[in-house]
């Protein structure tokens, strides 16, 4: 056994929605400090996996288990997962008209701090923290004085997700197709934000359809999801193979791999 502890252990996970089986036995181990990329074509189960990890109630787990820092993750409410250090960057961040971004983020951070027995931040300290993180993310302050995601462009929404991640300081971050729909400049700036948050205590799972993001966020491991299973795992080169040969190559190769 290595010294590093497991951040996340997924064992034989079967899950679906509305009676439809999507995940058919996922196994994945993520250690502290590692960056894992999960790639796969549309319909392979990427979204289901991220939703199950975040605790979306409409998804049902029919078999298997997920341990987060040794605890049973599936028993935890979504807010408890967040308070224990899980952060999900949404594929489609939700617009919440009327809820101010700053107010929302302060409520979230203080809920997390309270859970960790840390003193809640007052408005002044919070603003100081927010300003520092904005600078880190190279974001404009006007963004945080608006309603959560309301009227944000696609790129602004994704950057706002990474900005929230920077403020909430999670132990495990899951980036769900954070790159989809971004132009190259937005992609680079999101990736830069993520890279500044990489550290030996924090694990990151990057879920993506495209290899392109992995040029900027270089993963330690790449897993390929297909038909609700991880059909291949490897180093960062695997992503390049996929880019060159397409997902079709894998689907053909699956029977042989068994």
């Amino acid at each position, binding site marked *: 056994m290595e010294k590093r502890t497991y951040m996340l252990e997924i064992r034989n996970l079967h899950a679906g929605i509305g009676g439809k089986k999507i995940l058919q036995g996922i196994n994945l181990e993520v250690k502290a400090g590692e960056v894992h990329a999960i790639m796969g074509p549309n319909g392979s189960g990427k979204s289901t996996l991220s939703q199950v990890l975040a605790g979306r109630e409409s998804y049902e787990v029919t078999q298997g288990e997920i341990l987060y820092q040794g605890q049973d993750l599936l028993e935890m409410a979504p807010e408890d997962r967040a308070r224990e250090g899980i952060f999900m960057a949404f594929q489609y961040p*939700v617009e919440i008209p009327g*809820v101010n971004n700053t107010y929302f983020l302060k409520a979230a951070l203080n809920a997390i701090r309270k859970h960790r027995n840390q003193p809640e931040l007052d408005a002044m300290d919070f603003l100081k923290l927010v300003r520092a993180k904005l600078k880190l993310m190279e974001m404009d302050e006007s963004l945080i004085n608006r309603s959560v995601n309301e009227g944000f462009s696609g790129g602004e929404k994704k950057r706002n997700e990474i900005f929230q991640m920077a403020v909430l300081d999670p132990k495990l971050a899951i980036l769900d197709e954070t790159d989809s729909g971004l132009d190259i400049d937005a992609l680079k700036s999101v990736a830069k934000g993520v890279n500044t948050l990489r550290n030996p205590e924090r694990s990151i799972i990057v879920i993506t359809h495209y290899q392109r993001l992995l040029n900027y966020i270089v993963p330690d491991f790449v897993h390929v999801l297909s038909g609700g299973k991880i059909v291949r795992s490897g180093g960062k080169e695997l992503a390049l193979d996929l880019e060159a040969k397409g997902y079709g190559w894998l689907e053909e190769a699956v029977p042989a791999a068994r």
Partner: protein
Amino acid sequence: MMIETIQETENYISAFAGLEKSRAAYDPAWLNQLRRSALDDFLRLGFPNTHDEEWRFTSVAPITKVPFNLAGPGKDPSSAELKSVTFGRWPGIQLVFVNGVYSAALSSNPKQADGLFAGSLAQALQRQPYLIEPHLARYANVSAEPFAALNTAFIADGAFVYVPKGLVIEEPIHLLFLSLGENSNPKVTHPRALVLAEANSQVQILESYASCGGRGLYFTNAVTEVVAEENAFVDHYKLQQESLDAFHISTVQIQLGRNANISTQLISLGASLARNHVNAVLDGEGGEATLNGFYLVNGRQHVDNHTSIDHARPHCNSHELYKGILDGKARGVFNGRIIVRPDAQKTDSKQTNKNLILSEEALVNTNPQLEIYADDVKCTHGATIGQLDADAIFYLRSRGIDLESARHLLTYAFAGDFIHRLKIEPLRVALEASLFARLAEGQEDR
């Protein structure tokens, strides 16, 4: 049927006889005549029933079956009781009416600006009836609206605010109508207010309706007429936080002259049954009317807002936003009528009604009613009835915010665009507090 009708109106007829006897000698002849003809209108119209299109979703049977007696002047509430229905320090003039009668002792009526009158309608009728006669009951549709007729038949005291030409009143004026609930001998009051803003004047007015003690059965039947003459600016608010056992029926009748601007904000929180009529008539070119409303109901409360905007002249704008939050088994009704007369070209009118339903059993009926007789106009309307957005709740929870807090935050956000428009700060603070208190109650219920 006939016998029932007689029973329903019997108390009102005998109360009218008593009122006429005591007032006839003091009041001007035109007022006696006005009351008498309004009573005739009321008796001719009778109480509405649900066969009447305008009252399809609101039955007034709970009101007509109680034999209400006309409230006399009540005992003044204590300062502690008063505190619960005021807003702490009120920045301007505050007039208090107990059971419809002006209380000088409870009012705070500092030296008034030159020419301003804000005070008792009964006093003003004695001193300057010539200001009142051309306006009182000249706008409200007394011959067609039974409750407006009933109120008019009982005009005795109330509030009169007169802002002469060119005068700008900086501090808001608060008209507080207090009722004393009494289950053993339930009372009706007919609060009346007349606001006259002459040309180029400006004033901000809050009417609020409340009870002392919070519970108790009574019936408030209020009529307010607001007149903005040429280029006058009136910012009007009506806060209804009656006892949860009470009935509240009101008419806010708004008359706008050339280039006049009136904005009215109606807030309905209390009463077991509330029905509001807000009628605006844009009777001069370039007028602008804003009719906004907010209702927050729970339990078995029923709230009905019937609004009407009459574009009678060209180049007028109207904006209307009514938002409601319904919990428990509450019922809401919104009916928004917009009339654009043949002459009213270049009308720009926008109506929106949005409802947030927090429970399985709450219900809303919403009905836009557009009657457009001009061809060069812009009229839009939209209505929504929805629940809290499950995706938004999940998003908040995924950031560490618990389920109840997430629901509260989103409910507050729904109300936010109404609340943030309230320009009177003490009112805004009080409404936020009411909303949070109501949300906390809802949480206990669940």
